[in-house]
């Protein structure tokens, strides 16, 4: 080969640098990898060998509350079981993906899982949830807010254990509402808050990003207008009737357009999620924000960390979600987490016993106070500690009673992603045509005639 010397110059230089330094580290790396594999196998043996006593709880990421509750229940069980937690991905859609793929492969390591309510029908329909024993079902639905029970029910049967129930409220700056002359002791409409924010040059925060949060917002709007995303036959993808092109669907689209096109929406409305809209509310332009209760502990945390002035959260107040029409009560979003027991778990009885412990009132109160996640048990809202930490707890409870769940269907993912595709970016929606387009798209997707 001609001119081999010229060609090899860079190559030999590159390879001669490596061996001495890399050889050793590669060996130690291989050693470490082997150790890890062995440790993993041993751990797996341990949990299998330990029999029924070790339970794994797949949790959504939080501020450490679920891990603490797990260790409390482990202690309370008196050695009958131990609960270990395994953390799922950050967003609800990825949590669903991971759990479903594991369950489709009959993963026996899933004893308990924290489930986002709209995905529960899909899990139940696929047979991924162990049946709830009757006596357990009776106990865990006693004195629980209606929306949380509804969210855990599929085909008239309780399929999951209500844990905590989230809802969105209308956060507002007292100073802004006062300056705009808005009486917040009375229910307010979207038109009113947009007008008030515009008059003061402040922001109205909502979730306009193409994500699950957009479906949450749209669902609250259409439910508040008196309609529903699914009108009929939620179980059957071929006969499903969608309610997006109804007058109520049009009204919801009008409100979405009103907010997105207003000056109060801010520059990044089409990429705004729960976190970034809370950031906007914390800024000096903050006016109104429809968001979950975490907004308040988040601000208190920032004050503690010294990154926010104490006067900011003092200006915060919460009211029930804005109305679409003046005379119709609002239907705020319902969310939260319910507990499912894996159908392939080796010890479903123990898992249900653990689930009952996890949802005990004192654990729910602890979770509410420390992590800002509202309880599904009504009695928790009278807890003095809760009222002290969350002066707006009564508003949250009222909101939970009014809250409407997102459509319950085993095909929820297709419906939600279809809505996100049709209604994003919110500033481009057209009350006259978007609903019809979304209807057509989702129907075609459910019939497997379209890509998503």
């Amino acid at each position, binding site marked *: 080969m001609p001119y081999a010397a010229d060609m090899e110059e860079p190559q030999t230089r590159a390879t001669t640098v490596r061996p001495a330094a890399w050889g050793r580290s590669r060996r130690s790396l291989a050693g470490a990898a082997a150790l890890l594999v062995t440790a993993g196998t041993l751990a797996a043996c341990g949990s299998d060998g330990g029999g029924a006593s070790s339970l794994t709880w797949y949790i959504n990421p939080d501020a450490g509350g679920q891990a603490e509750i797990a260790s409390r229940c482990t202690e309370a069980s008196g050695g009958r079981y131990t609960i270990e937690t395994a953390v799922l991905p950050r967003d609800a859609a990825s949590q669903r993906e991971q759990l479903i793929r594991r369950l489709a492969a009959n993963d026996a390591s899933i004893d308990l899982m924290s489930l986002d309510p709209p995905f529960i029908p899909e899990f139940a329909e696929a047979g991924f949830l162990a049946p709830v024993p009757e006596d357990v079902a009776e106990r865990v639905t006693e004195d629980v807010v209606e929306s949380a029970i509804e969210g855990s029910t599929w085909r008239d049967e309780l399929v999951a254990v209500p844990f905590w129930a989230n809802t969105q409220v209308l956060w507002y700056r007292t100073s802004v509402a006062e300056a705009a002359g808005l009486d917040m002791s009375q229910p307010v409409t979207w038109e009113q808050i947009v007008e008030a924010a515009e008059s003061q040059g402040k922001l109205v925060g909502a979730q306009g990003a193409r994500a699950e949060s957009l479906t949450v917002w749209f669902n609250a709007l259409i439910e508040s207008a008196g309609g529903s995303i699914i009108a009929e036959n939620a179980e059957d993808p071929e006969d499903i009737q969608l309610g997006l092109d109804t007058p109520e669907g049009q009204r919801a689209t009008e409100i979405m357009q009103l907010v997105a096109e207003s000056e109060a929406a801010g520059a*990044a409305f089409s990429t705004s999620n729960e976190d970034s809209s809370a950031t906007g509310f914390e800024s000096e332009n903050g006016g109104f924000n429809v968001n979950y209760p975490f907004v308040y502990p988040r601000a208190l945390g920032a004050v503690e960390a010294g990154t926010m002035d104490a006067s900011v959260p003092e200006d915060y107040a919460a009211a029930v979600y804005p109305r679409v029409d003046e005379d119709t009560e609002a239907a705020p979003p319902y969310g939260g987490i319910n507990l499912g027991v894996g159908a392939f778990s080796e010890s479903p009885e123990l898992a249900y016993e653990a689930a009952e412990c996890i949802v005990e009132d004192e654990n729910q109160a602890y979770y509410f106070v420390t992590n800002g996640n509202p309880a599904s048990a009504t009695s928790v809202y009278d807890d003095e500690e809760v009222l002290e930490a969350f002066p707006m707890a009564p508003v949250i409870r009222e909101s939970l009673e009014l809250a409407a769940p997102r459509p319950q269907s085993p095909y929820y993912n297709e419906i939600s992603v279809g809505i996100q595709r049709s209604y994003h970016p919110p500033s481009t929606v057209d009350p006259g045509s978007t609903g019809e387009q979304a209807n057509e798209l989702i129907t075609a997707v459910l019939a497997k005639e379209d890509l998503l």
Partner: protein
Amino acid sequence: MTTTTLPPGKKTEPVSAPKGGISDRARSERKLGWLLAGPAFLVMLLVTAYPILQATYESLFDFRLTDPDNRAFVGLGNYGVILSDPLWWQSIGVTAFITVVTVAVELVLGFGLALVMVKALRALRPVLRAAILIPYAVITVVSAFAWQFAFDINSGFVNSWFTWLPGVAADTDWFGDKWTSLLVICLAEIWKTTPFISLLLLAGLAQVPEVLQEAAKVDGATRWQRMWKVTIPNMKAAIMVALLFRTLDAFRVFDTIFIMTNGANGTESVSFLAYRQTIARLEIGLGSAVSVLLFLAVVLIAFTFIKLFKVDLAQARGE
């Protein structure tokens, strides 16, 4: 001035080489070759051919992961659904756009970096190479997050540092529009994979015989003429291989889009579409069909490069 390359390699073969037939030595070498490469070949079959075949098989079914009982054979129905959907053609367009833009920019930048590495002082070379390689060592998801944070309207610095540029304002929402999103996606991809192309080109640059450069110099060729008439023609094989590898890579773009826009504003690539059908929608049949079509597109690109541009992979290895 004509281009200057070396005479074809076959002229340098010894005249005494036997014609036709395979010698015993060649035969035993071939056997040794199979013995050495055989196990790797088997592993390759197992980890690449098997999934491809399985995906092709699954793509002929209507099969939802959560509903295995209702699995039904639909023949080429899934392909019909995909090819008649405007979303497929839109994502082909987006993927082609990202591929063409990133590969073209990377080729120019990578060539510049390769020249810098070749010409740098001997003492500086290792440091320089390490510095240029760093982006390539960064995991794509991490690089995507870093670029997303940089351009984010709330936490990013781009909006406050570059307001002097036309079109950039303090409230520019980069991820709120198709073309600005694609711009940031392309920037992140270019930053990350230019080192790869420059390394391949560096190997090609080192292949250009110094004697030809000297001869051109003696003939009075300018620096620019030497670049166009000597350097580039002599490293054509290396350039084509770099282009081929990067094009195949760029056509499968996924991570950056997944992190930055999650497919919003019509920024879905073909890989992203496959992800959404298979993983999010759990339609294994439809998703497999998208993957098979993506695979065919990649094969087509490789075939076009090798046949049309006559890329000789063996030549790039210096054989």
